[in-house]
């Protein structure tokens, strides 16, 4: 009897003592429904996007550092735009100089990795909660969200590896430890092992067209796995064959799924790709003015290569801020070889002046006539064409030249360009590299391709090559902000950047 009374009292008290906070959302009353998971996932994507939106990031990290971009004479804010040339000399300290005219480009923000780790913590905690079980989340949904969160975690590590080299790696939720950096090859191998089991838990494509491309699908996972393998193939050269075989297998799986397609290079077709949510998109950060999404004016790559009539208002957008040097453009799209991309994606390609237009990025919709912003600019990360070319590259490295050429020619065919008919071997590999540069122009891949293939040390491929000493000391990384050492003596900063 006494026990019963006590039990009743304790139960009643538990009810009495349980007060749902009405003024704030604490962890105990979150993760209670599938809606909470959706909201948390949205937050995770938007946090990552914040890092891309910090400045002219895609261009700064992925395109400018090999030295082909120059400031148009007479560009507005010309002094500040010169940062692209500073980046092109790989003088990152100067690019981050707070007293320089380009101070407002804020490249020092790239060196701070806190936000990336916030994405990782969010993913880790979400995974932990999903494994504990969240009411209303069935087995299929649970596996799908697990795969999506794992994808975002690995994607973030891969992104950081490309920026900083070695990084701190952990997957446990609420990690509060002071960890040292781990070798990047190991980090990516862990990520590959982490992500691979989740691949088949994501759908190829979504029933809801609004999620296509914008949210991680099986295609996103495959693209990321291919990229991670390709990166490691470049740095873990003893095991490169294995990595290439992985990429070849993944690429074949992707192509054979027929879940994705290449759009024709017409205004409508390419416009759809650039707007996002297309069948060609494997992964992107979808942005829409209809959702009130706010892109920093500086953030889109195309911002620096558009002028009136692609950019408004006319009076201060007479010329593009920057241009790609003609020697490089000529190398990309040699005259005499048919290639619709050269005509459709560019204007005054060889002008060496502000007349240069990368019309590839001009297919955005302005909110009104006088907008110097790109409100509807979706940030493409992985495109079907990118994966096909990685497939070709891996096959070529494995000397499966015919298969490689078949994949390569899928891209050339869409571009209405002359199919590749040259020899195999190194010629083919180099051609595939250039094809990646042609196809993925401005999408933030070129510099990382140069680095992982070591072509960054070759002036035939990069206008501003690194020497082998610089390459070995990782001059291709970014410095890591001093704050990383706060409360963590085990962090060693990037050695190359310690001496100015």
């Amino acid at each position, binding site marked *: 009897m006494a026990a019963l009374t006590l039990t009743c009292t304790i139960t009643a008290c538990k009810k009495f003592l349980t007060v749902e906070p009405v003024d704030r959302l*604490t962890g105990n009353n979150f993760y209670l429904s599938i809606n909470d998971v959706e909201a948390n996932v949205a937050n995770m994507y938007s946090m990552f996007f914040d890092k891309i939106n910090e400045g002219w990031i895609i261009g700064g990290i992925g395109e400018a550092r090999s030295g082909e971009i120059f400031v148009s004479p007479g560009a507005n804010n010309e002094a500040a735009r010169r940062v692209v040339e500073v980046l092109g000399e790989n003088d990152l300290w100067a690019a981050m100089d707070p007293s320089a005219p380009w101070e407002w480009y804020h490249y020092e923000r790239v060196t701070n990795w806190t936000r990336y780790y916030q994405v*990782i913590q969010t993913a880790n905690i979400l995974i932990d909660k999903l494994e504990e079980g969240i009411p209303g989340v069935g087995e299929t949904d649970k596996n799908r969200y697990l795969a999506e969160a794992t994808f975002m975690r690995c994607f973030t590590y891969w992104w950081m590896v490309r920026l900083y080299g070695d990084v701190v790696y952990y997957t446990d939720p609420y990690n509060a430890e002071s960890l040292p950096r781990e070798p990047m090859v190991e980090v990516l191998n862990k990520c590959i092992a982490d992500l691979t089991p989740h691949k088949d838990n994501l759908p190829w494509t979504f029933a809801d067209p609004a999620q296509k491309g914008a949210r991680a699908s099986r295609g996103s996972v495959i693209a990321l796995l291919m990229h991670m393998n390709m990166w490691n193939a470049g740095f873990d050269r003893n095991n490169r064959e294995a990595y290439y075989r992985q990429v070849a297998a993944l690429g074949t799986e992707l192509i054979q799924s027929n879940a994705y397609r290449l759009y024709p290079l017409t205004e409508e077709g390419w416009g759809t790709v650039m707007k996002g949510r297309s069948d060609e998109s494997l992964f992107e950060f979808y942005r829409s003015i209809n959702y009130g999404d706010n892109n920093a004016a500086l953030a889109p790559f195309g911002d620096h290569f558009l002028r009136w009539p692609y950019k408004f208002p006319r009076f201060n957008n007479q010329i593009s801020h920057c241009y790609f040097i003609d020697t490089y453009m000529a190398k990309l799209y040699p005259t005499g070889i048919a290639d619709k991309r050269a005509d459709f994606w560019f204007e005054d390609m060889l002008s060496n002046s502000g007349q240069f237009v990368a019309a590839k990025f001009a297919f955005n919709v302005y909110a009104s006539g006088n907008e110097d912003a790109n409100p509807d600019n979706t940030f493409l990360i992985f495109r079907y064409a990118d994966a096909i070319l990685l497939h070709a590259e891996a096959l070529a490295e494995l000397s499966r030249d015919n298969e490689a050429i078949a994949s390569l020619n899928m891209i050339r065919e869409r571009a209405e360009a002359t199919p590749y008919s040259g020899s195999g071997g190194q010629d083919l590999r180099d051609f595939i590299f250039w094809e990646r540069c042609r196809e993925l122009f401005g999408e933030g891949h070129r510099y990382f391709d140069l680095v992982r293939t070591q072509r960054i040390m070759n002036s035939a491929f990069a206008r501003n090559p690194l020497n082998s000493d610089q390459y070995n000391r990782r001059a291709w990384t970014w410095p890591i902000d001093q704050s990383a050492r706060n409360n963590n003596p085990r962090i060693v900063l990037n050695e190359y950047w310690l001496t100015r």
Partner: protein
Amino acid sequence: MNNLINTFNMKTVYLLLWMCGCLISVQAYAQTNITVTGNVIDENRQPLGGVTVLSGQPLRALGTTDENGNFRFSVPAGATLVFRIIGYQERSMSAGNGRTSLRIQLAPDASALEEVVIRGYQKRSKELSTGSSFTLGEKDLPDVPVANIETLLQGRVPGMNTQLNTGAPGFRGSTQIRGLSTVSMTGTGDQSFLQPTSPLYVIDGIPMDADRATEYGFQQQGPGISPLSMIPQEDIASIEILKDAQATSLYGSMAAYGAIIITTKRGNSPIPRVRYTHNSFVRTPPKLRETLGGNLERQLKLQQIYENAQDYFDIWRISSEAYFLSDSLNAYWNNSTNWQDYYYRTQYNQSHNLHIDGGDQLFNYKANVGYFSDQGIIKNTGFTRYNANLRMEYQPEDRRFQVIGAAFAQIGKQSVGDGVGMLQTGVASNGLSSTLLPPPSFYQSGGSHASALNTSNNNATRLIRTNLEGSYQFIEGLRASTSVSYEFESKTEDTFTPAAANNQFARVYAYNGRTTQLYNRNSLNYSTTLNENHNLFLNFFNEFRIAGRQSAISRQERSPNDQLQGPLGFDGFSSRGGGLLNDYTDERAASFAFAASYDFKKKYVVDLSYRLDGSSANGFENLYARNPAIGLRWNFDKESFLEPLEWLDYGALRLSWGVNIIPTGTLERIYGRFDITGNYNGQQGIGLNFDQIPNPELAPKTNTQYNLGLDFSLFSGKLEVIYDTYYKRVENELFEQLLPNTTGFTKLFSNGAGIANYGHELFLMIRPLRLNSDFSLSFSVNGAYNKDVLLTLPEHYGGQFIRWENDVNNHFQHVILRVGGSTLANYLRLNDGVYTTDGDVPVDPVTGLRYQTNGEYFKGGDPILRDLNGDYLLDGNDYARTGNSQPLFTGGASILLTYKGFSFNLNGSFTGRRTILNNALAQRMGLMGNPFGYQAVVPLDDVDMWRQPGDVATYPYAYDYRRYGTIQPFRFDQDLWAEDGSYFKINNIVIGYMFERDWIRRWGLANLRVYVSGENLHTFSAYSGPNPENVTNMGRDVSSGYPVPRTYNVGLNVEF
């Protein structure tokens, strides 16, 4: 349980039978009743009214004495009368053998053992209490008008360290029982404060959170009126301070830092009694900073420039920039303004208190109506309190039922000007203005001056609390009671800053908050005696509490003009909004406690108690904190081998152990906080707030305390001793750890820190005179030694954590926590004196360069700052651990001397061995840093300062203003300012005279007493600053603090 019920039933039957027997025997005696009359007087031969007279077996109250101490009752012949009143020893006298007229003198409660203590809301005999506690009665509170009753406890209780570190009216100082309980600091620089760890206050059985007003340190929003300032001192009957965990564990988590139990007066007089108390008092500011006025200032500044100028440019600056020095004939600059005089004042105040009570055991009532005003010694500040307290008790003859109802209504009004009460930064900086400047006027309305004097600040706290208590005794010894209380407190703050004080635009700020508390306690207790030797007391109770808080502010920049303070909100820019603040609280607590006490012949006592504390703030998994305690007591005077000792009144040995658990995990700390932020792909995002990492393993803070005590009294109360020694360990102290950015989070609340406190407490009371002498003298002295040691820190700190002070304005006075040492030490540069000549400066043998800092070489007259790493460069590495900001010794002494109607009472308190950083002196000497600036200059004649090569001095040369930027001779971050803050303070002296009753009766008065008293009269200290007590609890003497005034009072106490 069933067995227990059976036992009860059997006992009931026995009891009924036994009671019937008693009734029969009473009837038998009733046939030979006699009438007994008599008179009861006190130790001063004054009649004692309200004394309860009891008789019979069991004792039954016959009635009480009238106001003249007379009584008249009819009792059986030979009956024994027992006379009982609180505060006096009980006496019994038999009324047989023809003695029908009695004269009884009651002696005051000399023996502390007769006192009643309160444990777990139950009255218990002190003789049986095993914990460490200390009681102050109504008479122990001196007649000094105070806003906050805590002031009166200073130096009275061994082990309780009260420091009046602010003189701001209506605010509280700091109170610590048995040392440091936290390492959490809030704020920066001079405004660093230890997280308050205040004892729990229980007022008439209702627990109250004394830190409520200071939840966010002292810079909280809303009126900072301490809830303790709302209790009128005239209404207090007794205060009991519980110190060890055995005594406090029944009060649970909230009492982890000790408990202070305040009982207000209750009615006890058959005829209504009216008592009026009046105080007229003057508060005077302490000695203010000396400044040189008018031409003296000008001459000193000019001379300073002439003597120390580096080149002609400095001289030229006198005429090109410093017009106030060169243009001495200009009336505008030709002044000698005493700026401090515009802010500080001597203030006359009054208090009135009317106390009405009446009734007897059956029904009694009390009403207390009061007014107290304390307008501060800084202009535009002050505190006023109005109170009306009411209490009624009803207990029918058979004492089965008891009903108590009480209502308290208090209004506190306060103004802090433009300061925040504890700090008056505006006043402090204005007080330093150059005397050459014209005095304040509308024309010369320096914004800050107008702000300090004309900001209209009106804070009000209105509090209503009612409680109702009922109890019923089922059978003898078994009593159930229940108590319900509701408290509502409304807090408002209105601040209007006139245009002149805010860049020509008036500003309005309003705060509006409320807190509520619904409290319920139900208890069941049972006491019994078996075989006359074994006494058992069982007490079970539970408590429920629902506490709520909500507050909102509104702000308006640019109200139309100084006359129009509203309506508010006319545009989006100026209406700065505000809205609900984030201190919204809806907290529920449920606790269950059980206490058992057993004693054998009152000789051996065992106390066991256990309390479960549940709170909605603890999260959902670990709802309950468990507080166990054990206490043992041996009253060795009752041993047969000691009983023959006539000189031993009593003696007891106490031993206790107890644990208090304080939950520190809020929902936010345990589970994290989620914000609605970031949207993606048309989906609103909700994500973690990355300020603090959720810590599901956060453990509650644990206070474990061991206590060993010895009480004894010798020679009929001539010497009383209470000694306690204790060891207190605070584990799992909440520690705010900063995280590496690879975690994504900023900080982690972890459990890594632990502190130990150990010490000794001694209380001595000496009454050297005979009890029946006309003179009575009691002298008491108490002292406590407390040492704190930092036991642990989170592992990765390697045993040391430095709390860096990185803001230039905060003086770089860092705090270091090092395991094994005293917890809070300063981290400063070490000063070894002053270089007497340039040749004394060490030279780097490698480079041949002199010791330097900031690109400047040291020379004669500069401070010798120790080069700790030996690199001949003074930089950020040359810091060392020094000093301890917490006192080692605290205590006090008190003398009470009475002769007939006269009485003299002196109370003093002391604090020993603590380090104070004399920032006031650093600032004062630093005033000489810029002779071109509009700052006052101070005489430095009394300072042991280097003046010429060869001087061996304590303080560096102050007049070479060019070295202030580089050498910084008066930098705050050096231990030159660290001084010993030991002091002995005369808290108060009261001299009173009580008129003879026969005299005043012709005026129709029952009692008349007049007295003069003084408070905060003198502090004896070697400290060179103004007041070693007027410092922050981190030991920094902030010159912008609110000085503690001295008070002179004339008071009157009339009863009719």
